[in-house]
């Protein structure tokens, strides 16, 4: 489902200060937002986007209280508690490497004008549980096109904000901080890959879900969805991700959901959908094979796990 206008207006701009400075603009925005809000709910009832699943959505409470975000603690309930005061504005994203104009962007400038959509995706965690999450975000491909990487750029690397004063677990060596993830360029350009800025039809994203901006790649295990992105780097060689560094025998670069290739310590054949009692079979590429399998044609997925 596509929302045509104005969702790129950051909530920080809709403040009394701005009202004071530019009242007319505020009124326009407010009307605009109201129109969008009503049309979203209307559309939500009627139209399902081509990438959306119509499976039962995981309750908002579960999506926002059961999180893996190690920077805020290793327990599932820790991020919701410890990320409460995480500052997500002002926020900058440093665009670096093989790109036309390396630059540090205030996040609102970076995403201004990009089409924000609702995307209802399955999310399969490498630990063996899964959710159905209605994200709100834009296609990563649109941003990449705007940034104009050079032809040498073969991979995109992402980094989470490194700020131990705000992300307390970065003081401890659980992983080699900052968290790093990466995609091959064709993966990054795949229409399924989005950068999410909202959840359940509204923005901003809750802090514990990776505010202000996070990656969502539904055909890969959840840990590929790097949160609170502060750096995007275009590179020629394959990035070494945080989990590859921590356990190279257990986590590969691709990390595509694959029931046929077990994690060395546990099975990946089944998963428990949050809210369900019985386990269900895990699907290749988490059920997105039609959209993504061709990218890996001819590759040995047992080696490229």
């Amino acid at each position: 489902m596509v929302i045509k206008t104005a969702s790129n207006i950051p909530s920080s701009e809709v403040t009394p200060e701005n009202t004071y400075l530019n009242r007319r603009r505020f009124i326009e925005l407010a009307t605009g937002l109201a129109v969008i809000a009503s049309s979203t709910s209307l559309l939500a009832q009627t139209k399902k986007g081509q990438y959306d699943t119509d499976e039962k959505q995981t309750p908002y409470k579960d999506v926002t209280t059961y999180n893996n975000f190690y920077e805020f603690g290793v327990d599932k309930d820790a991020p919701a508690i410890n990320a409460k005061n995480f500052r997500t504005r002002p926020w900058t994203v440093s665009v670096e490497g093989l790109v036309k104009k390396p630059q540090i962007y205030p996040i609102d400038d970076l995403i201004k004008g990009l089409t924000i959509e609702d995307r209802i995706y399955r999310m399969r965690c490498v630990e063996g549980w899964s959710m159905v999450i209605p994200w709100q975000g834009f296609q990563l491909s649109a941003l990449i096109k705007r940034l104009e990487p050079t032809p040498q750029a073969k991979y995109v690397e992402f980094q989470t904000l490194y700020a131990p004063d705000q992300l307390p677990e970065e003081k401890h060596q659980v992983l080699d901080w900052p968290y790093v993830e990466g995609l091959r360029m064709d993966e990054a350009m795949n229409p399924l890959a989005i950068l999410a800025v909202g959840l359940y039809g509204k923005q901003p994203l809750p802090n514990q879900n990776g505010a202000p901006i996070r990656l969502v790649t539904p055909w890969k295990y959840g840990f590929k969805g790097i949160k609170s992105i502060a750096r995007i780097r275009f590179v020629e060689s394959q990035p070494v991700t945080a989990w590859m560094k921590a356990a190279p025998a257990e986590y590969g670069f691709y990390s595509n959901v694959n029931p046929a290739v077990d994690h060395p310590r546990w099975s990946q054949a089944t998963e428990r959908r949050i809210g369900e009692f019985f386990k269900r079979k895990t699907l290749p590429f988490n059920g997105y094979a039609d959209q993504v399998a061709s990218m890996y044609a001819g590759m040995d997925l047992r080696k490229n796990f």
Partner: protein
Amino acid sequence: MIKLRRSIKVFVFLACLAPVVWLLIAAATDNLSANPIKDITESTGIWTLRFLIITLCVTPLRKLTGWNEVIRYRRMLGLFAFFYGFLHFMTYVWLDQFFAFHDILLDVYKRPFITAGFTGFVAMVPLAITSTKKWIVRLGGRQWQRLHRLAYLSALAGVIHYLWLVKADIQRPVLYGMALSLLLGYRLFAMFPLRRDGLKQREIAA
């Protein structure tokens, strides 16, 4: 005095039940996380290990402090370790795998962390069975004691089980490993008092 002793024992018994009571209350009031089966698995698992460690503290505590009373609680604490271990095992068999015995056997065979956990649990079974006074008499104190050293194996298997199942957050399993090393190290040290004296004499001579 006997009355007081008895009420202390009842109190300890109830305190040992607290984790499972808390779990039941949390489940009944919808205060578990989005993945309740995992919560139950983790809670019963960690309490198994805690009770094993607590049980292994009894003897060193008695010997180091001379507080002989404490031995009265060892059997109960050990049985609680088995109780939580049994709940943990049943959570896995019933709630997690739903009696899919083929998958369970495959898990025990293929997944080292489950092999370790299963070993730890199985090692506790004969200890629970022979925990009665009758069995002590039947086996004879020395044999019984020897058999009950399986508790060391069980705790060790428990720590390894924990260490092998976490992703990167090894801090907690390592802490339990350190506690266990201390407790087993103490026993090793206590086993060779002569050598220790020899060392001391040499130190004095030097």
